[in-house]
């Protein structure tokens, strides 16, 4: 098992009562979906706010980034980037620049 870092947008920090970064524990070969599963298991209030209930994909206005790359359109079973695996940087959950 490994511990990975997840960075959350402001709305979700307040909703879950956490700071900007949280840690979750996942398997050694974790995927993007595994991290979101672990995030929802650790913070059930986030269910439905990053992914729709019952869906593997992200909500339309939520984006995922790591290592300077946009992972938003990668399949849920995509392996985590190396620097997220090693804890050197977080998986960033970002709200799209939208709304007013």
């Amino acid at each position, binding site marked *: 098992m490994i511990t990975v870092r997840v960075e959350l*947008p*402001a*709305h*979700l920090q*307040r*909703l879950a009562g956490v700071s900007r970064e949280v840690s979750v524990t996942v398997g050694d070969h974790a995927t993007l979906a595994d991290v979101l599963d672990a995030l929802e298991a650790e913070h059930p*209030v986030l*269910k*439905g*706010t*990053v992914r*729709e*209930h*019952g869906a593997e994909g992200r*909500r339309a*206005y*939520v984006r995922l980034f790591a290592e300077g790359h946009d992972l938003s359109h990668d399949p849920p079973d995509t392996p985590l980037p190396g620097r997220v695996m090693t804890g050197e940087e977080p998986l960033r959950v970002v*709200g*799209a620049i*939208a*709304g007013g």
Partner: protein
Amino acid sequence: MSRVRVLVGTKKGAFILTSDGARRQWRIEGPHFGGWVVMHVQGAATNPDRLYAAPWTDWHGQVVQRSDDGGRTWEPVGNEFAYVGEPGTHQWYDGTPHPWDFKRVWHLQPSPSDADTVFAGVEDAALFRSTDGGRTWNEVEALRQHSTGRTWQPGAGGMCLHTILIDPGDEDRMYVAISAAGVFRTDDGGASWAVATGGLRSEFLPEPEAPVGHCIHKLAMHPSRSDTVFMQKHWDVCRSDDAGANWTEVSGNLPSDFGFPIVVHPQEPETIYVVPILSDSEHYPPEGKLQVYRSRTGGGEWEALTRGLPQGDCFQNVLRDALTVDAMDPCGLYMGTTGGTLFASADEGDSWRPIAEHLPRILSVEAQTIP
């Protein structure tokens, strides 16, 4: 002496104002859920410290928050609103089939007798019920599965179920209103629903007197008279005295019969209030004068209530859930504008003053009278 608590939902959070029964000095707290769009905050009749709120954002969807201490602290509860079965399609604006898709909660209505039972009216139009204080939600599916459901179309704000009236004398009787489908009534706790739009006429419809397709903006009912329902429609103020079987227009001498909210006086079942708006394409008051109109005859004859309200250069709207009454005697009224001003009257609407200004766009206002 009783106290009053006013629950305000805005585009950027919820605010709670409290006062003693004199309603002169107000304390304001908030924003709660800062940055979230709070469509509605509502208290339970049997336990006024039990509040429900419905914040959402485009980014993160719907959340339901619950308080058991009058809004000081909140707990997120269930936010899964799943339609029963394969929801199929309704009609889109252009008449083409469009998949039913949950978007957000518009209105929360706790049961008159049980604080843990609460209904949610949602977009795309459906009614949900929770019996565990909002932790889990189950669709009252017979409404959406009504034989006319496939023909329902959205109004400009979306296909929203925005009004839930529960008869406190017989909770199996409920009315719901959907924009722009119409009014539906159940007399068996939601197991079956009847169209309740007899006599309504909407000129924009291909068949102006069709049973379904009317853009109902709001309904109001005095709790002691569940056969009598008042309506602010897209155009026309109407009443029915036979539970929606027949409606008659009571717009009378209103300067415009377009508007959004309608409320009933808590002690006088024939006294009602509306806020006329210029037109469906100009959502601001006629002549830039914000005026509440009161009828003490159940409609037909209306008087303008202007004292303390801006009587020039006011181009703010009052949305469908943004006018309400308390249960004091004399009753108070509370009105929130899209410009973020909350006006209050402690004398049945005779005079008004702002009790909060510069808030975000006000979406809903509810008042609790607390013993």
